[in-house]
């Protein structure tokens, strides 16, 4: 387990995520939403809106934010925080890009408290 803390797991090429879109990674620790913003930046959040658990991966991605499909909360991709008057945070998942491939933290795959 300790060894895994420093490990990164590859999930696939960044190009498989649509620009201004997201894909889901299914994991024991719960679904993870991996986003690709218009400028190509990659972000990952727990796929669970801080409001009522809506799947953020299904929202509309704009700038570095996503609008939740259930009740339109806007969540920052950079921090996972709800924007504007809404309060709450979707846990941020560490991601790295190496040679165009997306890696996410192995810990996040297994544990819920990422």
């Amino acid at each position, binding site marked *: 387990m300790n060894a895994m803390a420093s490990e990164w797991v590859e999930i696939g090429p960044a190009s498989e995520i649509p620009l201004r879109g997201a894909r889901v990674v299914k994991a024991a620790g719960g679904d993870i939403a991996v986003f690709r913003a218009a400028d190509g930046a990659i972000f990952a959040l727990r796929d669970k809106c801080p409001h009522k658990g809506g799947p953020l991966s*299904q929202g509309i991605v*704009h700038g570095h934010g996503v609008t939740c499909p259930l009740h339109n909360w*806007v969540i920052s991709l950079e921090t996972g925080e709800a924007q504007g008057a809404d309060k709450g945070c979707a846990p941020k998942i560490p991601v790295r890009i190496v040679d165009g491939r997306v890696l996410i933290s192995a810990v996040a795959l297994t544990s819920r408290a990422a």
Partner: protein
Amino acid sequence: MKQKLVIIGNGMAPGRALEKLFETAPEAFEITVFNAEPRVNYDRIMLSPVLSGEKTYDDIVIHGDGWYIRHGVMLYKGHKVVKIDREARTVTSEHGAIAEFDKLIIATGSSPFIIPVPGHQLAGVVTYRDLDDVHAMMLAAKTGGKAVVIGGGLLGLEAAAGLQMQGMDVTVLHLMPHLMERQLDPAAAYLLQRSLENRGIRVHCKANTHAIEGEKRVTGVRLDDGTLYPADIVVMAVGIRPNATLGKEAGLSVNRGIVVTPDMRTSDPDIFALGECAEASGQVFGLVAPLYEMAGVVATNLLGGAAEFHPSATATKLKVTGCDLYSAGDFAEASGREEIVLRDPTRGVYKRLVLKDNRILGAVMYGDVADGAWFFDMIRRGVDVSEMRETLIFGQGYQGGSAMDPMAAVAALPDEAEICGCNGVCKGKIISKINELGLTDLDGVRAHTKASASCGSCTGLVEQVIRLALGDAYNPAAIQPMCACTDLGHDDVRRLIKAKALKSVPAVMQELGWKTSCGCAKCRPALNYYLVCDWPGEYADDGQSRYINERVHANIQKDGTYSVVPRMWGGLTSAQELRAIADVVDKFAIPTVKCTGGQRIDLLGVKKEDLPAVWADLNAAGMISGAAYAKGLRTVKTCVGTDWCRFGTQDSTGLGVKIEKFMWGSWTPAKVKMAVSGCPRNCSEATCKDVGVICLDSGYEIHFAGAAGLDILGTQVLGHARTEDEAIEIIAALVQLYREQARYLERIYKWAKRVGTDSIKAAVIENADRRRELFDRFVESQKYVQTDPWAERVAGKDAHEFAPMATFALPHAAE
């Protein structure tokens, strides 16, 4: 006996003189007006927005026919005056109409100058002066092709931009080394040229036209250096010349224009010359502001007053959407003059002030024109600027320390500061009219002061003055921006998408100056819809700008699963369909099956990954998507009608099925639900739908604009059809009009309330041609959308939507 007043020419200047006259003495004269143009008085300045498609002719009429009737004016349209007989005190038109006068106003304006190169009389060579010219250009633009504009001044560039917005490939030929050399120095002209080139207009300076080529019609323009520009139309915009011939033939004193004394009288004291044809203090004029001043002087003096016209500085703006250019006063180089120049090429900003003895004589601004009125005011008042020389060029906001907000800047303007250049309206006049008449909005201020009623470029400033006068009571809510990404409202955006032929979401955001990098969840779906609607077959749908339901063609549920609703045409189903549904429910362990309020069956709680397989099975039984998620055609409910019902008058079920089969797949601003009832007992609840049909013995009563969701509203009758085909044509035309006019998410009943049901009836019932055109456009757009989205996805489209990118099984953690 009333005095007889005759006016030759019905342009902007005499139009204004008549208004002034009627303000003080509506009964003083018996008035006859002759106009060579076969039309009423319109705002010539606004021809460019008509050319570009941003306005229509109706929008720019100043005085309609009714106005002349109300004021008892005899208007001869299409009558050119060919003779003034000063002995007999009469004028005669080319069609032989004769009118006697006691007082005469000559207001014949100017004519465009035509360079007499070989080929200048060929068909397809036009000038830019009146509505006929605009129509000729628009006609040429209809077939696309190439346009060459000769002349890179204000008029030429407005023509070029307009033609380009109409879809032509445009080249501007300019004799001088750089564009608008009278207003701009080479650096500023370069910024302007770059911005025109960025929008696709070719600019060729130092272009000396050698000949216009072609047999009967123009085919190209040849330059002295041999270059040939192919052209389907050539616009000459190289300058204007006062129309003074009539005055000269009548023996009046004429120089460049008809010479007038400061009281605007010609050498014959009963004859005035007014507008561009007049020469006052040795000058002729080509902008409306001084002409409107002249008009006031003429009106006063006709009534026995003693007003005088003394020319002062003028200001002008280039009316090309997206190119901000303002120039005021005199900016020629001369000895003793100094310049202050600010350049910021990255922001595309350029400002230049010409000073003499610490007073501003002229100002040119490009890119940032916010301070135009402030500079112009100082030019007119001859303010000594030595105190603020160092910060002057940065504008009003930087005087006296920190930057001022725009409201404070307007508050700081003196009462005499001119707000509307075209109409010479100052701040004090606007404020006093607001107080005196209790005006509350821009339209009121326009009507009573004329401020912003001509070229409209001062609208923002006028609104700030209104806000100043009324405080928070003023609510310019007229235009609610689409969202925080833009200041434009839905209607403006829709208009500009068409006018500028914008065909992608990034193009809209770029051209219309979006404030965010890629919009938001409010504007993107709206823009995507507008583009789908406006460019059928051309625009590539942007899935990422669609709400999830429309992206994956199912309805997302609170737990992240989806619901699936297949179409049941007109509410009909069969044993085979029901069996397939039952099998799918078993095979995919779908938890809930429910009859919807829309006469069909909903399968709720389907896992996203299962969607394509569920659809494949439903497709195999002949069912397609019911679009229960779409801003598009949803359901057409029916009752049993003549097939079974003892009261049925027509085949309501059959008609409902026909409508649904014809209209399914269409995208609309908000959802559209319909129903057809076989008789007025109305068992399909047609009278609370977006569109409803009530069958009668005599045919079909077509209803629309009902609501039964958040609001409850009975429908209104749109019209009556005798046959099913006629009913379908009316319904499709109605829906197409709605598709083209409504704002995104606006249901039919809200749209109808906003635009007025009369205008809808006029388009789809009273005007058979218009209805047919709408119907045809609907049919055209249906060609591209009637592909079942489920079948496409079963075949592999957007596969990434339905499969996780990676899956890591639980045991992984335990290892």
